[in-house]
């Protein structure tokens, strides 16, 4: 299938939206406006955007502690996201969740998750629900390289395999789990090799090539929709920032980070768009401007939004009133 100009430009716009949203989040965290733990996705945008561009709105994704990108890629509104990061009442989760816990069920976003590996079984459960009800929806679970050392990953992929569940396991391999290099905690060369232990196909793609991620996802999603079961897709990438805001990042050399930035998925698509004649410089600049405007408006919305009421801390524990 030929990829359309429209799709390409939308992928570019989403990646830029994530990048700019996070650049401002970084500043707002430093300024004390955004509290808590903030894990930036910068550098890995090609994965979330490539994958989510191959999904329908009623397909579901499960996310991680590094979840801003997944949320935006699946259509999340940066206004409600920013308000959530501020802890305001108008945020996606009324201020109860914050950066590590954002969900929007209407858009198929099952939620970010502070527990490494914690959301993999949940996405598998979404796929079980689809199969149980005979729909052709699919679920995607995003997780890091580090998460593939959790039992929850191994148990879930086995469940999905034996039941042919329509779930795609997308591993974002940025080679590190916090300060820990993947090579010190894993003996396999490729994470995709782990799939063979469960009788599931495993694929490795360049996560910084959004088009490759998109095309791979189209294929494996098609397979899942036809009832042929899960796939493990390893997307190789790297993060531009520290593990979280406040990380000194001493476990990587400056050169490694510089080299990573050179492989930026956004720059790569931007060059492709112009060189292949898909769009002019002007078109790209217009997108950049619109993205900035959207994020600035989101910040203004967050700033002006009210704080939650203290008594709201006791709501939402149960469906029935709190006791």
């Amino acid at each position, binding site marked *: 299938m030929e990829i359309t100009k429209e799709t390409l430009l939308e992928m570019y716009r989403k990646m830029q939206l994530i990048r700019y949203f996070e650049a401002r989040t970084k500043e707002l965290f430093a300024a004390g406006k955004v509290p808590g733990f903030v894990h930036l996705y910068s550098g890995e945008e090609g994965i979330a955007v490539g994958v989510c561009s191959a999904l329908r709105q009623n397909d579901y994704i499960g996310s991680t502690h590094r979840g801003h990108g997944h949320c935006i890629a699946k259509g999340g509104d940066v206004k409600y996201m920013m308000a959530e990061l501020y802890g305001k009442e108008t945020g996606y989760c009324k201020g109860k969740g914050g950066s590590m816990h954002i969900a929007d069920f209407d858009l198929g976003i099952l939620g970010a998750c*502070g527990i490494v590996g914690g959301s993999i079984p949940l996405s598998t459960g979404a796929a079980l629900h689809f199969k149980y009800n005979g729909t052709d929806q699919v679920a995607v679970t995003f997780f890091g390289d580090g998460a593939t050392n959790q039992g929850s990953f191994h148990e879930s992929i086995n469940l999905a395999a034996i039941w042919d569940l329509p779930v795609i396991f997308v591993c974002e391999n940025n080679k590190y789990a*916090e300060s820990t290099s993947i090579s010190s905690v894993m003996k396999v060369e490729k994470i995709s090799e782990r799939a063979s232990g469960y009788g599931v196909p495993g694929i490795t793609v360049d996560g910084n090539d959004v088009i490759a991620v998109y095309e791979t996802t189209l294929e494996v999603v098609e397979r899942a929709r036809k009832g042929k079961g899960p796939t493990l897709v390893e997307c190789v990438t790297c993060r531009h920032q520290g593990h979280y805001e406040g990380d000194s990042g001493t476990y990587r050399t400056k050169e490694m980070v510089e080299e990573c930035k050179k492989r930026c998925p956004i720059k790569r698509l931007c060059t492709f768009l112009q060189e292949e004649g898909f769009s002019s410089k002007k078109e790209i600049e217009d997108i950049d401007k619109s993205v900035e405007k959207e994020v600035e408006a989101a910040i203004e919305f967050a700033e002006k939004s009210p704080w939650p009421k203290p008594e709201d801390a006791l709501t939402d524990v149960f469906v029935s009133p709190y006791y």
Partner: protein
Amino acid sequence: MSTREILFLEAIREALREEMRRDESVFLMGEDLRIWGSPMGQLQGLWEEFGDRRVLDTPISETGFVGAGAGAAVLGSRPVVELMFIDFFGIAGDQIYNQAPKLRYMFGGRMKVPLVIRTVIGAGNSAAAHHSASVYSIIAHMPGWKCVIPSTPYDAKGLLKTAVRDDDPVMYCEHKMLVNTKGEVPEEEYTIPFGEASIKREGADVTVVALGWMVHKTLKAAEELSKEGIEIEVVDPRTIVPLDRETIINSVKKTGRLVIVDEDHERCGIGSEISAIVSEEAFRSLSAPIKRVTTPTVPIPFSPVLENAVIPNEERIVKAVREVASFA
């Protein structure tokens, strides 16, 4: 005894360094221990001194490495395992509930499990529902765990050394808001026995039992209450298993009034346990109902406004003490 002021995190590091120098069987295991020296830096320098053999960086596999700690302990190692946040205890749930603390009993007392788990507890920095809990009461509820909640660098060091030498599983809880606080710690070696409360402030009017970060909030509240003429006695149990019932009861016998300040969820929390013990064993000494100041039984919310609303603060402590003090 000569002392100097050090950080809580340095007290932890010193305790481990001394114990590792003293005893070859002590080793460290957990995520990001080598380069980071654990996320808040408690272990910095230990890998450099003790090397790869005694400082193990693990994959993110809590079931695996917590259980491996218990298994090695059974054979005579003394692993000090780091569980990055107490919220993660459920991931290693089987090892923490069914294995480590039950082995000795199930096998008729034929073995011991000298395992220490160091973990981080507490709210205070908007870390939200997966990184803010103080659910040590769940640990205390399980048969087989000892549980330590230090509030000062002095207590942190002495109790951690005792934990390492103890022959039973010990859950050692470091409050994230205390890790960077300072306090006086002796130059000389010392240990602090488990089950001995520390009276952080003497007072004749109301006994306030507090743990961890709450000790500090209670001491601030004490200043305000003192201005009103209410002198509280602040009792810090330091270990909740074993619990120093005697010191708590003796204090209540003196004051006749008890407030418990506990950051754990109210329902079935350690505050409920202390309240039950005092009403069973010192009922006739009480001149007022016992009051608890706790975190409601809700996940810890993210927004600072909501977090402040649920975590006990000085205002709530002052109010509770006033009520108990004025009860006639």
